[in-house]
């Protein structure tokens, strides 16, 4: 269980020492340990139920525990699937710039370490530490692309992230004052649901909403995600914001027992995010901004878990998280290819791109299927489960959000696709892309579709340790 945390952490400083050619074995090592660890953990959890590991042999009240169960395996699996293609892509994408490479890799592996550590930890203070590892690795990666635009986006991102983490920390302090423990399981046992608990939980939730760019606190996301280098945008949009959602779900259902009204409030924020983000995406003229606003919208679906609060909704939101992660990573990589070839990402001037970059555009098309929620993508199954949950819980209004959001997603994505298939004889000279640039976006998008066919084991995995008695 320690492997996925320690390996990238060890590799991070090594990257400074090795020349660029020597990095390839490192990429493969970290990717393979990540995948193998996830597969091993999934097997173990499926056979024996949730696993706990006491780091350093100290044990829960004093030491910090790691916890792997169905819920934490979902983001772990997403990270293990998305990061290796992004790494190979980044290796070639940052080809020319030696200096950039040197700064990029240590931060990249720290980001990877933070992603794995924050979903495996079972201690609410350690969550704060790992979130800061994530932030302090993610913000410099945004700045790497060098422009003033990126710098501004990064500063706004950093300030929001600090605001979020300090609010979160204040909530943690209140909960510690009330219960004298930081361990999630310990808190769950002692949870009283009184006013102090409610205030602590509210602060934690607001902090995580800021970290996760959920609707009213989303304004840092589009500038930061659209200005970063392509693989970084992909990692931020596909993975980093998902961590905050995972933690919300973990604390909401596994630790606390909040009132139904609070869940409705979060669901309302999610619904607003879906419509607001989609409408903003329709108005943007640049591909990366469209994709970034699409992230704001797609994150809204995840929040429908909180009012629905059932086994089907949990499965639905987690499958949607995986589907969106794969599709969004693919889209940002595709946008990177477009910028690499055309030198800009203005949708208006996309004529001929479809012929220029056929595999890339294929990836965009497949990702569009995932994002609009068409079968057989895993995102479709996620939305299907959410629909099912809305009917089961007799909360039909969420259906409007799910269907309307899908239609709007189709509108802004097909606009992009349509612009590219206008044929323009005057398109620029083709220069061949390295293989990773050509194939990685397609691989991610195809994975998003294929996972839909193999999602039954994932759903079964969510059963052990689930707080919902009537599991799907």
């Amino acid at each position, binding site marked *: 269980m320690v492997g996925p945390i320690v390996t990238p952490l060890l590799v991070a400083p090594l990257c400074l020492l090795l020349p660029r050619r020597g990095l390839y074995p490192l990429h493969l090592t970290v990717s393979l340990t990540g995948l193998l660890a996830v597969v091993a953990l999934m097997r173990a959890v499926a056979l024996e139920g949730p696993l706990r590991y006491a780091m350093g042999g100290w044990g829960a009240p004093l030491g910090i525990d790691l916890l792997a169960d169905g819920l934490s395996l979902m983001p772990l699996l997403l990270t293990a699937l998305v990061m290796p293609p992004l790494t190979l892509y980044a290796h070639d994408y940052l080809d020319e710039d030696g200096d950039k490479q040197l700064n990029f890799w240590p931060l990249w592996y720290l980001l990877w370490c933070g992603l794995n550590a924050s979903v495996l930890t079972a201690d609410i203070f350690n969550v704060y530490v790992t979130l800061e590892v994530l932030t302090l690795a993610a913000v410099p990666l945004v700045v790497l692309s060098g422009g003033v635009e990126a710098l501004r986006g990064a500063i706004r991102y950093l300030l929001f992230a*600090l605001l979020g983490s*300090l609010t979160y920390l*204040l909530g943690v*302090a209140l909960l*510690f004052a009330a219960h004298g423990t930081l361990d999630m399981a310990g808190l769950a046992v002692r949870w009283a649901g009184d006013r102090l608990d409610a205030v602590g939980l509210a602060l934690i939730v607001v902090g995580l909403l800021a970290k996760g760019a959920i609707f009213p606190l989303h304004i840092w996301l589009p500038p930061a995600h659209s200005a970063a280098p392509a693989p970084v945008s992909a990692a931020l949009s596909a993975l980093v914001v998902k961590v905050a959602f995972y933690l919300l779900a973990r604390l909401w259902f596994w630790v606390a027992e909040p009132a139904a009204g609070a869940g409705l409030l979060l669901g309302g924020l999610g619904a607003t995010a879906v419509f607001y983000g989609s409408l903003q995406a329709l108005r943007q003229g*640049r591909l990366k901004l469209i994709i970034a606003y699409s992230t704001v919208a797609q994150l809204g679906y995840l929040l429908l878990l909180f009012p629905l609060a059932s086994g089907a909704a949990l499965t639905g939101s987690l499958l949607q998280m995986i589907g969106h992660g794969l599709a969004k990573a693919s889209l940002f990589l595709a946008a990177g290819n477009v910028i690499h070839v055309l030198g800009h990402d203005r949708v208006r001037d996309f004529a001929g791109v479809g012929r220029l970059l056929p595999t890339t555009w294929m990836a965009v098309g497949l990702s569009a299927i995932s994002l609009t929620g068409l079968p057989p993508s895993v995102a479709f199954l996620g939305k299907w489960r959410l629909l099912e949950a809305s009917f089961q819980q007799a909360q039909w209004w969420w259906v409007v959000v799910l269907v309307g959001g899908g239609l709007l997603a189709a509108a802004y994505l097909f606009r992009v696709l349509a612009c590219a298939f206008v044929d323009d004889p005057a398109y620029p000279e083709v220069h061949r892309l390295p293989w990773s640039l050509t194939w990685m976006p397609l691989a991610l998008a195809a994975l998003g579709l294929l996972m839909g066919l193999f999602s039954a084991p994932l759903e079964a995995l969510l059963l052990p340790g689930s707080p919902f008695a009537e599991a799907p």
Partner: protein
Amino acid sequence: MSQLTLYGLAAAALFALGLYGLLAYAHLLRKILAVNVMGNAVFLFLVALGRTDPQQTNPVPHAMVLTGIVITVSATAFALALARRLHREVGAVDLDAQSRRGEALDSTQTEESGKS
């Protein structure tokens, strides 16, 4: 217990002060300082928590504060470095004024910042 309440109220006041500073001021240095005030508010509360029992101190909150200080210091240093770079590239350390000046400086990105 009333002493802890006092510390708690002081921490809440400091936190609110920092939050106000973060939202109200445009100057980046002030924003960074405001974040630090917010952080210190939380640390004040945590340190007070370590001494609720007069006979003995609880080391866990102290460990949390130490970790928190390390993180805040590095985050502050990084934020200051970013602010310096912004000053070098745009000539202002001001989140609102800089967007106007920034557009004038690099004309290639005018359209993007106009739309975002």
